[in-house]
């Protein structure tokens, strides 16, 4: 396994090459981990059927990526992380596209990336994992407090802030609509989760979203 660094603003992100392509004509699979996780040491067994390269990104404040001072995490920041990885990976892709596989929080970010860069994301697969529920769907009375600086990952601010990040269903659905509008696929999103929080249930109900087992999703987007 090799690790390269991609830059997102002031953050150095670790991009792990977990497995080289078996078939050079197959596109890369980008793994996005859950909240508080990091890229595993090797490609998980449940994705090894993928014929292209398998690559994992450590989000800001996770794994081997930079720990920022004083927090400030949002899902949209992590979308920027994933977009930095996308920019690096499409150069290696035979057709200029990648497929995204996200667990938990990574599933939400993968969906955002599929909407934001629809022409470069050939399918987003959403799987259960830490941070899947996310925060509330509307305004709350949550308060604010500071944490001591951390030198280890995961950054406690990431755990706190991304665990309460707002996910209104209509906002989340808009990423599905963007993915459909910009993708060549009729169904560019696959929901493979058992747990369906409110925002994800709304996603699964959208036209253009597959509700299928993981193996079928991988096969469809291959």
């Amino acid at each position, binding site marked *: 396994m090799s690790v390269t660094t991609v*830059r*997102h*603003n*002031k*953050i*150095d992100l670790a991009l792990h090459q977990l497995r080289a392509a078996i078939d050079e004509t197959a596109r890369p699979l980008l793994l996005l981990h859950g909240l508080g996780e*990091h890229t595993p040491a090797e490609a998980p067994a449940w994705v090894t059927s993928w014929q292209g390269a398998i690559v994992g990104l450590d989000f*800001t404040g996770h*794994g*081997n*990526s*930079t*720990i*920022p*001072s*004083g*927090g*400030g*995490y*949002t*899902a*949209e*920041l992590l*979308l*920027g992380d994933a*977009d*930095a990885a996308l*920019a690096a990976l499409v150069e290696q892709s035979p057709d200029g596209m990648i497929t995204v596989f996200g667990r938990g929080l990574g599933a939400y970010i993968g969906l955002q990336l599929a*909407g*934001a*860069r*629809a022409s470069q994301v050939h399918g987003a697969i959403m799987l259960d994992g830490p941070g899947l529920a996310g925060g509330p769907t*509307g*305004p709350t*009375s*949550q*308060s*604010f*407090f*500071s*944490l*001591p*600086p951390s*030198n*280890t*990952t*995961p950054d406690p601010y990431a755990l706190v*802030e991304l665990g309460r*990040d*707002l*996910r*209104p269903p209509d*906002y989340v659905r*808009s990423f599905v*609509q*963007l993915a459909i*509008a*910009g993708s060549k696929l009729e169904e560019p999103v696959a929901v493979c989760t058992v747990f369906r929080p409110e925002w994800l249930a709304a996603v699964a109900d959208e036209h253009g979203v597959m509700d299928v087992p993981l193996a079928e999703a991988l096969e469809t987007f291959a």
Partner: protein
Amino acid sequence: MPHGTPAPNLRQHDYRRTLATVSHTAATLDQTVPFPGAEAPSRQYDIDANGIRIAIHEWGDADAPPMLAVHGGFDFARTYDLFAPRLAAGGWRVVSWDQRGHGDSEHAELYSWDADMRDALAVFDHVGRGGPLPVVGHSKGGALMTQLADAQPFRFTGLVNMDGIPYKRNIPDIAEHERSKMMAKDIASWLDHRRRTSDLQRKPGTIDELAQRRGRMNPRLEVEWLRRLVTTGGFESEDGWRWKIDSSMRFGGFGPWRPEWTLMRLPGLPMPFLGILGSEMEEMGWGTPPKKVLPYMPLQGRCEVLEGVGHFVHVEQPQLVADLVLDFFGGLK
């Protein structure tokens, strides 16, 4: 490196030191453009807001009772050079700070509403030492403080919100698929910007050129005031002046937050509240129609609408607004 082990080598200490040197150099040379009635702060220093260096600016007697003044987005504490001295003349120690990434404060790796809120708490703790404070906020600073007043009311003796009351902007004539196109453009533009920010610097220019650029966003403000802003919110290097604000920050963006969520917090605020709105809509304003927010006033609240005044009420009418604030806080001193 395994999960859970230190990663100190990836931090950005050198970068921060460079920025601190730049801003201190600019302060030492003091090329501040004079403007009638404007005064530099009496005291300037930094505090550590949980790992982020925050620059504090104070006007007035150091022993006077403190009042916090919170600036808006893409502004900085020195935009209170006209307004704060008038409050100080009323017997207050006016304390403002540059929000992270703005003015002389540190350029952080990340920016968010919650992070701004936590930085603000560090200032509250430093100034108030556990006690409640009178607070004035403009634009984004007003909206931040409105949410904080709802979340932590024990920190406030009263709140003045200067043209920082958000209101839902309806665009009724746009079909759903057009909204998606607009959002797609916003997201792509934001992500494209993020891909460039690691090498991005703000465009240099002369004082007049930067003032002219700022004038496009602040068309109602006097040129000499804008020129002063360049010399208080910018720094000079070999190729010209640049704004100090972090080049990764920009207008626009997207996210799940909706402006009406701040408005919903207003009616329940338990402390005395004064809203000051300008009647004239402009680029950096929040497009808040006064008649729409008046029904949201809290029980101890009122709203003053300044006719013929734009978003920067405290710059266009510093004495009038200072008098309103001094009158409002006079009984709370």
